[in-house]
C-alpha cells in the first residue's frame, strides 16, 4: 500500500467518525425523553472512537512498519466502561423518576427487581435524593 492510499483510508475513517459524533449530538438535541437520549452516546463511543482508533493503528503501522496494538487498549477500555456508565445512569434515572412520580417506561416483566435492578430495601430506603 502506498502512502496515498493509506491517507485516503484514514481520511475516510476520520470524517466518518466526525459525522457519527455530529449525528449523536443532533440526537441529544432532538430526542424528547431521557431514555431515548441514552442511545446517542453509543454512536460516539462505539462508532466514532473505533474509527479514530483504527485510523491511529493504521497510521502507526504504516509509519513504523510493525504492527501496533496499543490503540486497541482504548477500544477495550471503552467497550468495558461505557455500558457500565449507561446502565448505572439509567438506573439512577428510573429511581429518580419513580420517586418524583413522573412517568417511567412500561416494565417488561412484572418483577420490580428485574426492571429496576434494585432490591426492595434499596427502593424503599430512607436516603432518597430529592427530585431535581
Amino acid at each position, binding site marked *: 500500500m502506498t*502512502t*496515498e492510499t493509506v*491517507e*485516503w483510508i*484514514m*481520511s*475516510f475513517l*476520520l*470524517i466518518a*467518525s*466526525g*459525522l457519527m*459524533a*455530529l449525528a*449523536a*449530538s*443532533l440526537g*441529544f*438535541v432532538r430526542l424528547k425523553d*431521557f431514555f431515548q*437520549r*441514552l442511545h*446517542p*452516546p453509543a454512536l*460516539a*463511543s462505539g462508532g*466514532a*472512537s473505533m474509527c*479514530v*482508533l483504527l*485510523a*491511529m493503528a493504521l*497510521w*502507526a503501522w504504516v*509509519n513504523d512498519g510493525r504492527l501496533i496494538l*496499543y*490503540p486497541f*487498549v*482504548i477500544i477495550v*477500555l*471503552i467497550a468495558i*466502561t*461505557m455500558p*457500565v*456508565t449507561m446502565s*448505572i*445512569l439509567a*438506573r*439512577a*434515572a428510573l*429511581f*429518580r423518576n419513580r420517586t418524583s412520580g413522573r412517568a417511567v417506561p412500561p416494565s417488561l416483566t412484572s418483577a420490580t427487581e428485574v426492571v429496576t435492578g434494585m432490591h426492595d430495601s434499596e427502593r424503599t430506603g430512607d*436516603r*432518597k*435524593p430529592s427530585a*431535581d
Partner: protein
Amino acid sequence: MIPTGWLSGDVGPVLSAAILCTMLLYMAAIGLALVRVLRGPSAQDRVLALDFVYVIGMLIILVLGIRYRSEQYFEAALLIALFGFVTSTALAKFLLRGEVIE
C-alpha cells in the same frame, strides 16, 4: 498566505484537510452537547451530555496525536477516557443514592 500548522506539515494534504474537517465536526458536536448540558431538564441529562463531551475530547486528543505524529497524545487520551468513566460513574452513583462512597 497559508499559515503553517493545520494545512501544512508532515502529513499529506488529503489527510490534513480531513483532519481539519473532523475537528470542525467535533466542535459542532461538542457545541450541540453543551446545549443539552445547559438546557437539560434533569440532572441525569446533564451527566449524560458531559460524558459525551468527555468522549469527544478524547477523540480530539487522538486526532491531534495522528496530526503531530506523536505517541504522547495517546497516554493523555487514555487518562481522559479513564477519568471520564470515573466521573460519570461517580455522578450517576450520587444521583442514585445521594452519596458516592458508602
